[in-house]
């Protein structure tokens, strides 16, 4: 039995989730809007048409507002690592140090040095150099995200490292393995491209508002064309990268995939749930139905998970208690191995303290045998390895359903705008008005799937969140949570107010 106050763990998780979700309101807009500004300005550079310059400056102003309000909200996550997740942050410091340092030194400075030219340099540097600077800001912003996603990918699939039992740290053995971790790559491509969709939806929404109000019609139509092309390409790419991300989840985090699909009993030729109402009362191992209602596409889950129609996809019950026929080791077995590993780690520590080098070496040898299961040694029951299925299933399906709508929406706007009759399509404009909100919902649902889906792990299979947490008082975490709620609400109010004011003023007020 691990003696950690569950409410402390939950409050620490809630605070981190709250901060990360707030941070992620701004990040995808920065990732995509920076590229859209670069596209607008490139068209201006090529055509010399002043209207494109006006368009560029307008969206650049909104990009600047979003950047200013969002900047440094990620720093709070780093504060939380040091205070609320000190065990975790000590143990992964060596792994995360390199990607985060690279982010700071390379991407951030690249971004920051061209930022001034982008905003202050109009008519002061050449058009070509200004456009180059805008592209550099876009590339720099996106490179910043790469390194954070590499760090996140490592937590989902820890590779390229070795555990140092004397230092209690995971130490990097191969930088290339960490950077080219397949989970990190699929996460990076999926997340960045979804940011492009978010920003395209944002441009579409504001442009539709102008069209409904019959203001700045020419600017709105031109903006819709560029945003729809970018959004259409990006949303199709998101589908492709989403498929790759799901494949990686199936291979590296099968429990997460089972929760995403509400699959309790594994099967060959497993179907993909297109939509369904999950039975929240269902628990692993019981005889209740997993769904109250479901629509399945036969064989598709097997194809998605293993690239083979008839292949076996393990369910939650298979993963918890094992499935000998399919050669799947259960969590119950891994718990035994994990407990041996932790016991041997403790013996190693004691032997070292007593100066008994031979005993320490023997304990270390035993520890190495079961080291990869060490995280399971902290679990109290096998069922503890199951994430909250209903949350994961619902968030995944919200993301997937919305994701499949975006190519249709962008395609329709592109078609009617190019055809020249978008302003007559009064039924379509309100759809555009809500597209940004839907994109934001899809973004947040995607992260909920990724992060709730990997519970109970802070580091997959190696460290559960309850061991990663600092043993603080729950009350102090609750107080800081409340403070963040107030500060974040104020900042969000400021952003929305300034943004709305600027949108209301229009392109003349940049």
């Amino acid at each position: 039995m691990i003696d950690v106050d569950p409410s402390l763990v939950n409050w620490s998780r809630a605070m981190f989730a709250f901060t990360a979700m707030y941070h992620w309101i701004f990040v995808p807009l920065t990732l995509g809007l920076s590229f859209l500004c670069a596209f607008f300005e490139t068209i201006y550079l090529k055509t010399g048409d002043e209207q494109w310059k006006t368009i560029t400056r307008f969206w650049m102003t909104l990009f600047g507002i979003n950047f200013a309000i969002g900047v440094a909200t990620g720093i709070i996550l780093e504060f939380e690592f040091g205070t609320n997740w000190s065990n975790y942050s000590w143990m992964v410091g060596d792994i995360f140090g390199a990607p985060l340092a690279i982010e700071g030194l390379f991407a951030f400075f690249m971004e920051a040095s061209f930022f001034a030219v982008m905003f202050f340099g109009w008519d002061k540097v050449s058009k070509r150099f200004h456009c180059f600077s805008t592209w550099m800001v876009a590339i720099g912003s996106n490179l910043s995200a790469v390194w954070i996603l590499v760090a996140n990918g490592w937590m989902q699939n820890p590779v390229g490292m070795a555990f140092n039992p004397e230092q209690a740290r995971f130490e990097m053995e191969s930088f290339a393995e960490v950077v080219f971790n397949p989970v990190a790559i699929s996460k990076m491509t999926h997340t960045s491209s979804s940011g492009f969709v978010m920003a395209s939806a944002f441009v579409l929404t504001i442009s539709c508002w102008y069209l409904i109000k019959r203001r700045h019609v020419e600017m709105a139509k031109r903006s819709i064309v560029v945003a729809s092309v970018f959004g259409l390409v990006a949303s199709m790419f998101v589908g492709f990268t989403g498929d790759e991300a799901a494949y990686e989840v199936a291979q590296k985090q099968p429990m997460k995939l089972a929760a995403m699909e509400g699959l309790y009993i594994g099967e060959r030729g497993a179907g993909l749930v297109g939509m369904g109402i999950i039975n929240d009362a269902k628990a692993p191992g019981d005889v209740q139905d997993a769904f109250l209602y479901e629509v399945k596409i036969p064989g598709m889950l097997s194809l998605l998970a293993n690239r083979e129609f008839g292949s076996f996809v393990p369910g939650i019950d298979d993963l918890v208690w094992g499935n000998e026929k399919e050669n799947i080791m259960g969590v119950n077995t891994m718990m035994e191995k994990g407990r041996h590993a932790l016991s041997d780690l403790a013996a190693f520590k004691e032997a070292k303290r007593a100066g008994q080098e031979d005993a320490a070496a023997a304990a270390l040898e035993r520890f190495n045998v079961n080291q990869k299961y060490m995280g399971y040694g902290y679990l109290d029951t096998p069922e503890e390895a199951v994430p909250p299925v209903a949350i994961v299933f619902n968030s995944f399906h919200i993301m997937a359903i919305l994701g499949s709508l975006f190519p249709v929406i962008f395609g329709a706007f592109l078609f009617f705008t190019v055809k020249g009759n978008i302003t007559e399509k009064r039924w379509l404009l309100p759809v555009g008005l809500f597209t940004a909100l839907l994109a934001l919902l899809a973004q947040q649902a995607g992260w909920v799937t990724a992060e709730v889906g990997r519970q109970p792990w802070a580091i997959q299979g190696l460290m559960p969140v309850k061991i990663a947490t600092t043993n603080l008082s729950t009350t102090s975490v609750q107080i800081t949570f409340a403070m963040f709620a107030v500060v974040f609400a104020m900042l969000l109010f400021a952003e929305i107010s300034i943004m709305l004011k600027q949108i209301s003023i229009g392109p003349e007020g940049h």
Partner: protein
Amino acid sequence: MRISPKKVFDFYKDGFSSMTVGKTLWKIIFIKLLVMFAVLKLFFFPNYLKHNFETDEQRANHVLEQITRQVADNN
């Protein structure tokens, strides 16, 4: 074109002085950073291990203690 320090200084000076919405944004950024570093970080988010232990060896021992203690007790 030669880039002198004065030209760079003037570039930033003109840029900052001609800002409109940017002035409000900078105020928000400064207030935000002040709240983060002078209040939150200082009073509410000390680095637990740096604050409570002096050397890396002590920190490593503490973490090792944390991750093995209860399981070792049970065995």
